[in-house]
């Protein structure tokens, strides 16, 4: 059970199936983890072996394969230090030392909570045992295992992004439905979540909807994107789009987490590099007022959304009002998930060479 011994050596590490390694550590080669060191100052992305002390909000931890494993006091987990910005859950920052801190995301983020939504319980309390290092004693960071931008990248395919008014505005549903529609049409869809906090939920949803490949910022080397610099954010965007292009995607669908008022989202969308990498944006909104505010913000930044969608589409009167006021088509999730969405996209991008329509492969003949 105990993976760690007093001499810092990860003695039982080789058969560590009882140590629960979180989704954020999915790219890590654990055979390179040799020591567990105390007394280090944690940094964003550093791997930490910790013991669960008191179960709070997150009573399960997501494993690399997407299964949510039940947590018990005393469990040993491997997670990554990271900052989290989630108005519906927690705000948290990487602490200064290895003193007890919190599990602030089920995907596996160790951090110290500084604010929480009233609906949340206290976060699960964890007790860091030590930072993982390689045989030379160098701290292991998830960035070590990041995908690198390939040396030569062919011309990228049509790239669409989905942004939203806030957390839980229906962004993921919009992204997922769009992926569903495009993949049912017969396109090989590459999907990526560009900002947010490391967790599998959205990536698995993208795959379940038919994405051939789904990546996120963890694949680009960051456990979460809160407080990252503009350059780092652009690097993530560029790396993910390049990797999806090289993997042969016919179309790329990106999810930009959180609302437009969130610092990183605003930075990214208003950058010129973003404009050269993304062809069109769909905007997801929770309600009418937020949709108007969001569209105004986008227009001020010279971005005209292709369509709006989101939670508000469940209310027909709101849909009617918004379509009239904003003069932007409203697409409900059923419409996005229909292969006929391609007809609309072909209108938006006249002259674009979409891949040949190859209907869903037959299973038996």
């Amino acid at each position: 059970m105990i993976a760690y011994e007093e001499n810092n050596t990860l003695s039982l590490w080789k058969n560590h199936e009882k140590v629960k390694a979180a989704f954020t550590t999915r790219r890590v080669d654990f055979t390179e983890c040799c020591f567990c060191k105390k007394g280090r100052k944690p940094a964003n992305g550093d791997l930490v072996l910790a013991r669960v002390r008191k179960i709070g909000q997150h009573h399960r931890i997501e494993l690399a394969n997407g299964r949510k494993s039940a947590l018990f006091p005393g469990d040993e987990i491997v997670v990554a230090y990271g900052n989290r910005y989630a108005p519906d859950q927690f705000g948290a920052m990487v602490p200064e030392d290895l003193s007890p801190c919190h599990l602030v995301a089920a995907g596996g983020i160790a951090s110290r909570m500084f604010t929480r939504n009233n609906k949340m319980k206290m976060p699960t309390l964890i007790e860091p045992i030590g930072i993982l290092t390689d045989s030379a004693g160098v701290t292991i960071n998830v960035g070590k295992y990041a995908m690198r931008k390939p040396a030569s990248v062919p011309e990228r395919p049509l790239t669409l992004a989905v942004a939203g008014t806030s957390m839980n505005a229906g962004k993921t549903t919009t992204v997922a439905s769009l992926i569903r529609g495009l993949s049912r049409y017969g396109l090989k869809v590459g999907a990526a979540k560009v900002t947010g906090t490391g967790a599998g939920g959205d990536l698995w949803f993208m795959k379940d909807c038919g994405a051939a490949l789904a990546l996120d910022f963890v694949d680009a080397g960051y456990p979460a994107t809160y407080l990252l610099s503009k350059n780092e954010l652009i690097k993530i965007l560029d790396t993910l789009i390049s990797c999806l292009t090289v993997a042969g995607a016919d179309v790329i669908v990106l999810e930009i987490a959180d609302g437009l008022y969130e610092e990183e989202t605003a930075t990214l969308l208003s950058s010129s590099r973003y404009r050269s990498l993304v062809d069109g944006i769909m905007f997801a909104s929770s309600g009418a007022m937020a949709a108007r505010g969001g569209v105004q913000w986008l227009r001020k930044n010279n971005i005209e959304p292709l369509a709006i969608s989101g939670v508000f589409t469940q209310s027909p009167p709101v849909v009617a009002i918004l379509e009239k006021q904003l003069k932007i088509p409203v697409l409900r999730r059923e419409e996005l998930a229909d292969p006929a969405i391609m007809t609309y996209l072909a209108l938006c991008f006249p002259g674009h060479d979409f891949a040949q329509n190859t209907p869903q492969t037959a299973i038996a003949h």
Partner: protein
Amino acid sequence: MTTTIKTLEKGWADAVKKTYATRRVQWNRAALLATDQVKPNPGDLVLCTVDELGQHTCLELMDGRRAHLLYRDRIVAVYGNRCSVNEFEALVPERLESCHLAASCGIAARVTGRHLRMRPPTTLTPLGLICDSCGTPLNISRFALAPGKSVCSRPSIIAVMGTSMHTGKNMTTASIIKGFVNAGISVGAAKITGSGTGRNYWLFQDAGADAVCDLIDAGVVSTHGMEPEKIEKIFYDLLTHLLSADVGVIVLEIAGNLYQSEVNSLCTSATFQQNIDGVVFVTGDAMGAAQGVMELHQHGFNVHALGGKLACSPLAALEAEKATGLRVFSRDDFLNGALLPCLTRPPMFSEYGAQQAPVGAQS
């Protein structure tokens, strides 16, 4: 009339969602698809398209991930009968015809009744039974675990039983397991009756059990409507498997209530009675506790303690303690080793087909 057989295309399995119920299947055995004039049997693998989403919008996959289920998805499910008083009652249909997803672990069946709180079930259109290269339908029983070797000694065995679904049985069982693990004792755990959901299987592993098995390992997806001998055999196979893992204690969860025929079959089986050293009875109220304990005593079982939702209410717990003379333990009590004093030296292992011993004969 002859069966219509088609060939499964190379790579077919990549494009489908494979349910938890198919956890043990060796996919390289799948070669053909029988699409017509076949009668499904419990345990047969069926390739289906999802038609209309109802109660279940998620599907448990082989590796335990809960995947989103979408209109027109293709899934591999397993035919099975299911009886869950809080969800669905469902039976294997006679033909390959439109049916339902009766459990998120991947049971295909025709739903014949449902709890009022359930939405209508998700509907499936079967495309065909998955067959081997000879055209024989693949049944999950073919991939069952081989029974463990015969042993003569055994560790203590604890059964967790309860009044009904949703009384906290899963978490009670997990807490009991974790309590032993915390005390440095290796644990074997299994769920014996009910349907083959992965929930328990993974939860027991998460709680630190060293050996875990469930109905899928016994090659069945559900025990509903099974003859008593078959249920006894499943118990025996899974128990011997855990015994061969050489663990310090075995914890068995018995799904369903004492009145369900399969649970009743187990309770009256001599092999079962003689191999269970004690029961933890899980319930939500004192009256259920009193009745359950009385019936367990009538079957000759020793009852260690009470647990479950009952423990959340101090007043109800007091009532139950007064009515039964047994302690009520909370999850934390179990985690802190409340059952450690119950690990007395157990009697010898009772072989399959043991004769009924006089009640109270176990040491």
